[in-house]
């Protein structure tokens, strides 16, 4: 029965390094690029395509024309360098500041720069809640009043009065809801704030302006342009459309009939109308409706329209998140004895918003890119400016350089937003999927 055993290894062999063909760059390529004849073929074809494009485009991009002062001079530079065809980067050198700031007075550039640096600071506690001290939230709350003041300038009392409205409203809410009911408190808060804004604040700011004229040099909306305009419209529309969208989404699911149908009507109307139509309404129709001589700031009109447009889409995205929540979550909240707002705040919204993150961010990105549509109503956003720059006899005929530069900057912002949303999703991932 027993067999003769010729050899038994008594000790373990030392571990050997894996074969060089399965680790490192070669291994990665074997696994990912050349794992079969089909993949190998696709890899080779793709490489060929990439190479061809690079060979075509790189000489065009790497052209020695940074110092050119007109299209013809660029051509002379190219001819002198014996370069063949190439981009004329002189236009970017001469105009990049204009593309960023539009017609904003150069000595005041620090104001938009400061506004956007502070914007990052104000967003930090919201975007990176776990890494930034929560005390910064106070600054975030103050920022909406600092932002327009820095950009548009004027007396400091205007933004302060606007902020005071919120404070007064909050006080009224506290007092009335303590004495009566919370619904009455909300109503009282809103009424007090509106009364302040509509009736009192104008008079008081006027008085304060004359007594204590502290302020920045005012800059008119017409001076706004370039990326500063795009980012301003984008930031305001994004920041305002999220809360508005949440309210609309909740309103659409509400049991109160009037609220529900108002929200449904608003959402469906806005979504049924192209953004360009709304912009034309803002730029031309409103002009005709309003009494002659009224000066209702064009950028403000555009901001309102873009925000309304974005909030209707946002509402539907968030409604999708609400619909995805299992019914048990709502019932669980009820069984804990939470009231409607508590349930929304503590249980429903955190989950619904988490589910909707990709949709919300893609709406944000869409809104930011849609800001270029304002060039159609004569605002000089980057695309509008590119047209104006081409109207300079020196740069007439330049197309790709300008569009390439603008596309690069838009890509930078949109890619950043997209990456952040992926980070947020990973961070909030709780393993339910």
């Amino acid at each position, binding site marked *: 029965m027993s067999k003769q055993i010729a050899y038994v290894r008594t000790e373990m062999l030392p571990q050997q390094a894996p074969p060089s063909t399965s680790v490192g760059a070669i291994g990665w390529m074997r696994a990912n690029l050349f794992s079969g004849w089909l993949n190998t073929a696709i890899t080779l074809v793709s490489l060929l395509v990439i190479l061809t494009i690079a060979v075509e485009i790189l000489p065009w991009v790497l052209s020695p024309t940074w110092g050119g002062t007109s299209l013809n001079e660029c*051509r002379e530079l190219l001819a002198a360098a014996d370069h063949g065809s190439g981009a004329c980067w002189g236009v970017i050198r001469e105009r990049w*500041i204009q593309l960023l700031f539009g017609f904003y007075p150069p000595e005041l550039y620090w104001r938009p720069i400061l506004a956007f640096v502070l914007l990052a600071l104000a967003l930090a506690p919201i975007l990176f809640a776990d890494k930034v001290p929560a005390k910064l939230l106070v600054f975030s*709350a103050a920022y909406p009043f600092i932002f327009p003041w820095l950009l548009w300038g004027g007396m400091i009392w*205007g933004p302060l009065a*606007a902020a005071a409205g919120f404070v007064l409203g909050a006080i009224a809410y506290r007092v009335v809801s303590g004495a009566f009911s919370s619904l009455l408190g909300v109503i009282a808060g809103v009424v007090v704030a509106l009364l302040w804004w509509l009736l009192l604040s104008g008079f008081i700011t006027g008085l304060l302006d004359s007594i204590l004229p502290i302020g920045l040099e005012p800059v008119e909306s*017409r001076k706004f342009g370039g990326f500063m305009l795009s980012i301003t419209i984008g930031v305001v529309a994004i920041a*305002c459309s999220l809360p508005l969208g949440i309210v609309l989404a909740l309103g659409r699911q509400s049991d109160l009939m009037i609220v529900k149908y108002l929200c449904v009507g608003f959402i469906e109307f806005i979504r049924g109308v192209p953004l360009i139509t709304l912009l034309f309404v803002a730029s031309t129709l409103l002009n005709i409706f309003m009494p*002659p*001589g009224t000066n209702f700031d064009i950028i403000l009109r555009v*901001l309102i329209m873009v925000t309304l447009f974005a909030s209707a889409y946002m509402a539907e995205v968030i409604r999708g998140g609400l619909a995805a929540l299992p019914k048990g979550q709502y019932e669980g909240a009820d069984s804990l004895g939470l009231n409607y707002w508590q349930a929304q705040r503590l249980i429903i919204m955190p989950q619904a918003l988490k589910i909707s993150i990709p949709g919300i961010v893609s709406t944000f990105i869409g809104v930011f890119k849609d800001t270029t549509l304002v060039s159609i109503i004569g605002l000089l956003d980057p695309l509008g400016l590119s047209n104006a720059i081409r109207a300079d006899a020196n740069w007439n005929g330049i197309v790709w350089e300008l569009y390439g530069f603008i596309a690069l900057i838009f890509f930078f912002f949109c890619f950043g937003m997209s990456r952040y949303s992926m980070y947020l999703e990973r961070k909030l991932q709780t393993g339910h999927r």
Partner: protein
Amino acid sequence: MKKSVFFGALTLAGLAAGAAAAGTMDDVKARGKLNCGVSTGLVGFSAPDANGEWGGFDVAVCRAVAAAVLSDPSAVEFVPTTGKTRFTALASGEIDLLARNTTWTFSRDVDLKFEFVGVNYYDGQGFMVPKELGVSSAKELDGATVCIQTGTTTELNLADFFRANNISYEPVPIETNAEAQQQYLAGACDVYTTDASGLAATRATFENPGDHVILPEIISKEPLGPLVRHGDNEWGDVVRWTLNALIAAEEYGITSANIEELSKGTNNPEINRLLGTEGTLGEMLGLDKEWAKRAISAGGNYGEIFAKTIGENTPVGLARGLNAQWTNGGLMYSPPFR
């Protein structure tokens, strides 16, 4: 979170709100600035430079009016308008004057309730073809593909011209002049048609302008001029006679170089009346007597403005042609200053 941005901005807008309209001239004087509608960008006619300063042939009209009324050619707020927003901007009072290469037509003057105050450039639609096509007249373009901007009068003119000459063409619709340049150079169309001034400006940007010819036929009348609202005749008069002053100045030989000397008084009563050393023409307009002198000093007379912005020594390189003085066989003719 930032709902309040609205209220902040609303307050600021409220601060900037102007008073209700009286006469346009009083408004302009009270404001200290002339709101002038210009194109968002048209080579030679209006374009901002790297510092954001607007310049060009249409812009010069705005500056002359500002100089006449406000004594400061830089007291102009330029409002860029597109083809779609220009008329509402004027009708609603957002701008006081529109100088945006706008063709004077019956319906714009009568139906849209505007007042064209004159013509500062006589344009017309032309054709550009590559030289190698060997075409010397637009009537030889049978079967050609034509790049044409959609939704403009040029599109209708083109159809009329080809039908009248009983020849066929194939339109290649494009949206902007920049796109047209690319399409035409890429060979997507044999012919590019738009206003002759635009053709010249486009051709000037080509790497080899000599390879392209502009055909002699001009198939439409495009008198371009500044316009104001109907019903405010005092303001219309100011703009009309400012434009006329520029044109007349060229006819009488008043230039930005010799205007100081001439305004001390000359033997020519017409010049004296224009420059305010004789008569009370300025007071009749509601301005002072040196209004025309300031308007001409702002950018020179009509001929100087033309030479500086779109003339033969500029990249646009337009000849005077129809826009020469009537004494030189053109159409520029100012009524007498009397």
